[in-house]
Structure formats: C-alpha cells, structure tokens
C-alpha cells in the first residue's frame, strides 16, 4: 500500500511539471497585433526591449490626410501581450528607424506633414510621448545613435542634397554636411517615392565607424552610394557607388578590425557579405564586392543585420524576406564569415521583416509585418528563446 502511495505521489509531482510556465511564455512567443478596421494598415519600423522586459514598437500607419505614413506606437508586455497604442496626431508623419535609446528614454525622428520639417520625438519606456522638438531640415531618411547624440541622414529637397547631421537629444544640430544628389528631377524621383512608399524602399543608412568617420547610404552624385565623410570636407573621403537606384548597399554594419557585414542589391539580385573590407578612402563600385547570392530573397530585399553572441561565438545575423513570404534569418561567424545556420519564420500568411533586436534573456525579438487573411497589414512579433537560437545557429 505504501508503494502505491509513493507511486501516486510521483504521479502528482511529475504530472504537475508541465503546468503553465511563465518563463517559457516569455522566452518564446508569436504575436500578431490585429485591428479590426478593414482599411487599417500598420507596419513596424523598429522595436526595442524596455527595462520591464516588455517591448516598445515604433510603427507607421495609413492615414487619411497625408500621402505619407502616420506614426504608430505600441507598448507590449514581456509576454507580447498588448498594453497600449498611440496613433500620433496626423500632423506628424514619416517616422524613421531606429528607436534610439538615450538616458533611459527613446527617441525617433519624423517630419511634419505640411512643412516636411524634421522633428525629434522622445518617449518613455511606457510609450508616452513628449512634445516633439523641431530639428530643422526636411525628409529624415535614416538615423543612428552617435554616443550621446544622434546621427541623422536627411534629404534637403530645396538644395537637392543628402545631408548628414549630428543632432543632440535636445534637437540642436552640432554638425551637418550636405552632398549633392545631382541635378534634375530624375534623381529625386526615387527618393520622393521612397518617402511616399509608392516606390522602391531605398535602404538609407547612416552611422559611424570606429575611426570616427561617418558613413551614409544615400544618393550622391546621381547614384545610391555608401559614402564615408568626416563632416568637414565638401566631398566624401570614400565612396562605394551603386547603380543609380538599381544597385548599391542594402545594409551596412561595421565590425571589428575595420571589417563590415554588408548586404547589397543589384538589379533585383541580393548578395550577403558577412565579413567584407571596404575602401573607405577612395571610389569603388558595389558590384565589385561580390558576395553570396540569395535567389530565395525577393528582389531588392530589405535586409537587417545585427551582431549577437551565440554560445560565446560572435555571430552576424542577417534577416530578410523570402519569395515564399517568410522571414529568413541567416547566421555567419563574425570572424570568418562562415555560414553557421538559418531559421525561417512565418507561414501561411505573408511575413516581412522590419527589425531584429537581442533580448536580455539571450533571445531575439523579430518584428515584422504580416498580412492577416492575406490582405490586412499588421504588426507581428516573434520572440525566439536562447535555446532556439543556439539550436539554429551553433
């Protein structure tokens, strides 16, 4: 009888072991944030994990009073559960990535819908917005954290210039340099179509390399180019030229030792270069960089790259969109560029990547757009556990 009681106790002990597991629920989940308005359209731009374990998502939305995208901000909890949303006033449009963290707050650039003047918004970890600060300039295209300041790439449609600026969190421009895109409306057309989201999405980028040089991926001298500048000289010190708007770099992440993790596109084809060298002080062509071709990706695919550490190994993780409408994650050894693994997200409905971030639990959060019922653009969030990442990229 005693043995039966022991067996019964073992039953209870083991049987209870698969009860709800909050740790597992946080570590791994998939969410699609749905709005039941038939003509609503939302897409994410960037995501950041907040100190409470939740996530802040900056997004865009279809609005009625402007041809540009409106601003959408969503806060979700550590389980991906919806907490709050803000559909920011339609006088502000065209939010751009990334959400930049500075002093415990989150910043992003956008512009006014009428004057097209660049604005800097600050929000807290709950997604509560402060009043915007007018920065000046127009058409913000890309941004990056730059120490305690922000690097901003914008388009000056009056002077037809690509402008790189350094902006403080209070909205002051401390440095700025403009570079001519070339004369004529034909050069400007793809830029404006990018902002209106009626044409090809140009991979505008800005950042800083270890040497102190700034780089930007934007139009210079009639061509989409990756240019390196000290923000003093009138001409960039180094230029990697693309093919007007049909070719160029689609993503650039500086690595250690002057190397770069790159992605490039050329007339629809996509190439990854996980451990590339760039000429930062001369003129070169992106087509000469070569790289691994990826016919599985959509034409001129959007590419996101982050540096992560998986099993004590530095890994460069690429995320992009496949022709089968999945999100592809491809991992490469940072030091050698060797391919180490892949993971595909999404099925049934189309999925497109917007942002990848590492999470404090060693996992990844991948934010993207899905088309619910094959038609309604909605924000989706994949949270991958550390175990799942190790399994895919070890």
């Amino acid at each position: 009888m005693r043995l039966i009681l022991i067996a019964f106790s073992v039953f209870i002990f083991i049987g209870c072991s698969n009860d709800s597991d909050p740790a597992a629920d946080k570590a791994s989940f998939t969410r699609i944030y749905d709005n039941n308005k038939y003509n609503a359209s939302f897409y994410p731009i960037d995501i950041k994990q907040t100190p409470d374990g939740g996530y802040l998502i900056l997004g865009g939305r279809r609005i009625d009073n402007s041809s540009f995208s409106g601003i959408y901000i969503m806060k979700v909890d550590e389980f991906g559960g919806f907490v709050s949303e803000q559909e920011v006033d339609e006088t502000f449009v065209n939010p751009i990535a990334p959400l930049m963290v500075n002093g415990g707050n989150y910043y992003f650039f956008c512009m006014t819908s009428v004057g097209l003047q660049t604005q800097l918004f600050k929000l807290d970890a709950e997604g509560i917005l402060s009043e915007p600060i007018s920065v000046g300039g127009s058409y913000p295209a890309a941004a990056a954290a730059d120490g305690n300041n922000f690097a901003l790439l914008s388009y000056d449609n009056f002077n037809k210039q690509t402008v790189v600026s350094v902006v403080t969190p209070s909205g002051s421009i401390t440095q700025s340099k403009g570079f001519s895109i070339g004369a004529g409306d034909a050069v400007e057309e793809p830029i404006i179509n990018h902002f209106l989201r009626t044409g090809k999405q140009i991979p505008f980028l800005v950042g800083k390399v270890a040497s102190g040089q700034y780089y930007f991926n934007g139009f210079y001298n009639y061509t989409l180019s990756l240019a390196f500048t000290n923000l003093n000289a009138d001409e960039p010190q180094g230029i990697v030229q693309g093919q007007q708007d049909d070719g160029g770099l689609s993503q650039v992440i500086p690595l250690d030792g002057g190397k770069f993790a790159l992605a490039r596109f050329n007339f629809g084809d996509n190439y990854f270069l996980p451990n590339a060298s760039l000429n930062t002080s001369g003129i070169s062509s992106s087509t000469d960089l070569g790289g691994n071709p990826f016919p599985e990706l959509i034409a001129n695919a959007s590419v996101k790259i982050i540096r992560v550490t998986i099993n004590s190994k530095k890994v460069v993780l690429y995320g992009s969109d496949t022709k089968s409408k999945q999100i592809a994650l491809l991992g490469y050894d940072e030091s050698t560029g060797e391919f180490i693994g892949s993971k595909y997200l999404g099925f049934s409905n189309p999925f497109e990547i917007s942002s990848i971030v590492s999470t404090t639990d060693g996992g990844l959060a991948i934010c993207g757009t899905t088309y619910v019922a094959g038609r309604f653009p909605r924000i989706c969030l994949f949270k991958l556990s550390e175990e799942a990442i190790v399994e895919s990229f070890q």
Partner: protein
Amino acid sequence: MKRLLPLLLLLSITFAVNAQQKKKKPGGIASKPSQQSKFLEKQFWLGFKAGTNLSEASPIKRYTVTTPTNYAQALNDKVYDSFSKTGSQATLEATFYYKGFSFSVQPTYRHSRFAYSNKFQWSNPDNSAEQLILNYHQEQKVDYADFPLIVKYDILRNKIRPYVQAGVFYSLLINATKSVKISGTDFASGGTNQFANQAIIVGAKDLFDNYWGLMAGAGMDYNLGNVRVVLDVSYWKSMSNISNAANRFSNDRLAGIGDAQDDLDLNNIVISAGVLFPMRFLSNSFKTLDR
C-alpha cells in the same frame, strides 16, 4: 523520468499483489469455509477490452497569436466542443480480485479527438461592403498510451456483478495531429463570397505532452462459463496540462494563421467492453465463475 512512470506503476502493483498474497497464508479460522468459497475469494484475471471515448478539452489558460489592439480579446476566444468527437481505445487488463475488491492495471492505447473554433471579423463602419468574416475550425487528434491503476469494488457477487471503480492514470503521448479548416464570407468581392479553404493538416506532437489524471466509473461483469464479459463506463479527468508549454508557438504553420495552443485539461468519457480470463485453477471440471 516521465518514461519510468509506467514501470514504477507496474512494480508497485506487483508488490501490492505480492503483499496481498503473503498475508493470505492459511491460519486458524473459526468457521472453515468450503473449498469452493475459499477459492473464489481471490483470482487473477487477464483480458482485453475495447471501445469508444468522447473528449472534452477545457482551457486552463488561454493563449493567442492574434492579439487585438482595438477590440475585446473575448471576441476571438476559442470555443471548445464538449464530448462531441468520438475516439477509440484498446485495453489490456490485468486484475487481481480479493474479497470483492479488485486491483487492476489496464494499459490502454487511446485515440481521442477534440475540436474548437473561433471567428475573426474585419469591417468598415462607413462602408458595409468592406467586411470579411473568417471562421477557423481546428480539430486535434491525440494518441496516448494510458497506464491506469484502478481499484474496483463489486457491489454484487452473482453471475452479474456490477461494480464501481476509481483510480489514477498516467498518459504517455504517442502522436498528435491537428487540422485547421478556414472558411469565411467576403463581402468585399463585389458580392457575398462564401468560401472554404482546404484543411491544413500538421503534425502536432510537439504541442502536447504527457499528463496524469484521476478516473472513476462503474461497470458490470457477466460470468459466462469460465470467462467474464465486462462492460464499463468511466470518466477520466486530467489533473495536469496536456499542452507542451515550451512549444505552443513552435509550429510556424499554425502560428502563421494565428493559432496558439492553450493550456488544456483533457477529460474523457470512456466506454469499453471486453472479456477477462481467470488465471488461477482454471479447469473444465470446476466452473470457477458460475457464482
């Protein structure tokens, strides 16, 4: 560890049976029963039975992929069918009978089915033609190896022997599949377009897990010559989550259409019929069971 549980069960019942046997050594009995009555005080039975089962899954905690931002989550909640899908099971029964009580192990292969449905709707208040309704119907088929430890009590000890039974069981997952049928009405196609897509069928073993539970029921034995025909009905209630909490979002095909596995209790009504054979002193000259 979970895999050792059936072995533990078998060992424990074996020890329990041995213990019963040791206690049954003949001693000084005031009124000596007849040989036949004494013989009938204990018996080993071995047999098999099979039948059908009805399942009910009830959510312990609900999970979802599709997370509403401007309407109530309850509008999308899954509605679980209750005891509407029939499954089947086959059981080997080994029972030790002693003075009206029976101690039984009944390893069972069980196939159960349960279903749920939910509904999504998008509309434009300014234009009634802009409306889409989607209905998701999801059916789960789970195969388990059940290892119950059951105590029965015979209410009557005649040729027809009604009994009540109760016990505990542990269920090992063998396989699981899930099929999703999507149908809907699209009012934005220039008319009313009712459609039904082909079912998506996926392997879902990763979404489920082993579990344990309690059972109780009643039945009836009918002694037919040297064999015993059995019919019983029992209610099996899971006491732990049958879902695999770590894998609820792991199936991209299901997550892609907005489905996530809830934490679930699985309850079954199990109806079985079969036959048992006595294993002790079985002979043609002595009808052990005609009592």
